[in-house]
């Protein structure tokens, strides 16, 4: 499809139609929506401008498009991290407030959300890129390497470390979470008597 767009630029609209939702969705999960939408539009403009350089032997445009998106995001790294920390605080507050609903699963998800946000904010941007391209974009090691123009070995080591950070925070929060949920539920029971 990219190769066709070299011959007929309007064929590039088909690349947009196939991949916009995924690229915009990936960006929207990472930065505020207005900025994400702007970056998604810019991703396709840049891709179109650079399509001559795209390796036409590669069948899948996704790593290339995610690579452009990740590169654009890098300029907004601080915004992304600030948003993650704000999200972590809000999720923690909501988790406590929602405890009276008595829905354990939702509590669990909210508390996990707070810890995930904290973990993601604490990662280096290179590690975060690798982790989220793996978890959210479903790219394989080779595809992430192509997207970020880094060796596959670097992908592996970054992913290993990033997963470790996230796991550790989740496990740690799990212990705290159990205590706080138990306490909240006990309080709610006391009050309902």
């Amino acid at each position, binding site marked *: 499809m990219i190769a066709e767009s070299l*011959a007929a630029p309007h064929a590039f609209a088909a690349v947009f139609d196939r991949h916009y*939702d995924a690229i*915009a969705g990936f960006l929207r999960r990472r930065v505020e929506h207005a900025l994400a939408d702007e970056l998604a539009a810019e991703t396709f403009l840049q891709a179109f*401008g650079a*399509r001559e350089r795209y390796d036409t032997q590669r069948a899948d445009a996704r790593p290339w498009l995610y690579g452009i998106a990740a590169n654009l995001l890098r300029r907004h790294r601080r915004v992304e991290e600030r948003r993650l920390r704000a999200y972590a605080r809000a999720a923690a507050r909501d988790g406590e407030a929602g405890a009276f609903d008595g829905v354990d699963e939702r509590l669990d998800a909210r508390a*996990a959300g707070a810890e995930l946000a904290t973990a993601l904010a604490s990662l280096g941007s290179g590690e975060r890129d690798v982790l989220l391209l793996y*978890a959210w974009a479903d790219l394989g090691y080779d595809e992430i390497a192509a997207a970020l123009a880094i060796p596959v070995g670097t992908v592996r080591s970054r992913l290993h470390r990033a997963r470790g950070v996230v796991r550790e925070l989740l496990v740690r929060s799990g212990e705290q979470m159990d205590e706080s949920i138990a306490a909240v539920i006990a309080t709610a029971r006391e009050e309902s008597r």
Partner: protein
Amino acid sequence: MSTEIDHLRAFRSDDAAPDPDARAAARALLLERIAPTAPLRRAPRPRSRILVGGLGLAAAAAAAIALVAGLDSGGVQPATAAEALREAADVAAQGPDVALQPGQYWYVRSESRQPGGDRGGPEVREDWFSLTGQGRWVVRRPGEPEEEHSIADGALSYSFFPQPLTYEQVRALPADVNGLYDAIERAGMAWASGNGLPVADRTHEMFTIVGDWLRAAPALPPARRAALYRVAARLPDVELLGKVRDGRAREGIAVAQTDDGLRRELVFDPDTAQLLMQRTVRAGSGELVYESTYVESGVVDSTTARP
């Protein structure tokens, strides 16, 4: 037992839903960029240059441009690209004035080829565009249904890239070489800065723009057609490749500018100053990147008529 990746997959998944308005706006923005674009635009300059070459590829170079041996149309052959382009300008200035009238369309039929894209024949594209930029274009690829696009009333023209200029607007540009050079330079710089390219690239961009404009130029007044060739003659680093045959085996003169590992060629008929072909090959290897041959053109009265 869920892993941290499962947790992550659920995290902020609600945010992933795209906004239809933002999607439509992004698509419109892309189409606006696409519409006035000539078949091939130059890519932004990469940070590091990758050498393309090798002896194996050199063999392909021989086939890349079919230099015509033994042809002699008489007279003294131009020694430089600038000479060849100035001679074409003189021919263009003498040409007929086929300027479009309101209600008429300039028709161009082109055939494009690229590596791996040849599925039993070239891609055939037909364009119809009016003085004010309305029209339509259809694309046919072997084994695929015809693809049709129309430019509605009031929509921007795709005629003259990189600015969506209509014939009327191009007619309003300066007719003298200096004025036209400046106008094309501004267009090239606007394109370059919009794509994060260094300003030093502008003459390369200008060469591409001149080629794009020449496609539609026969429907411009002869003086402006000539001025386009004279602008090309002033650009630096344009080399004369000599006589070649285009995708339809017509003989023409090829000039080229090489930048960023790609050689962009313009092939024109020295007797009529018509643009015959635009082609991009990899410098060194000569491997074809893209070529478009302008097979037929002329003035017609509707967007379904052919000359």
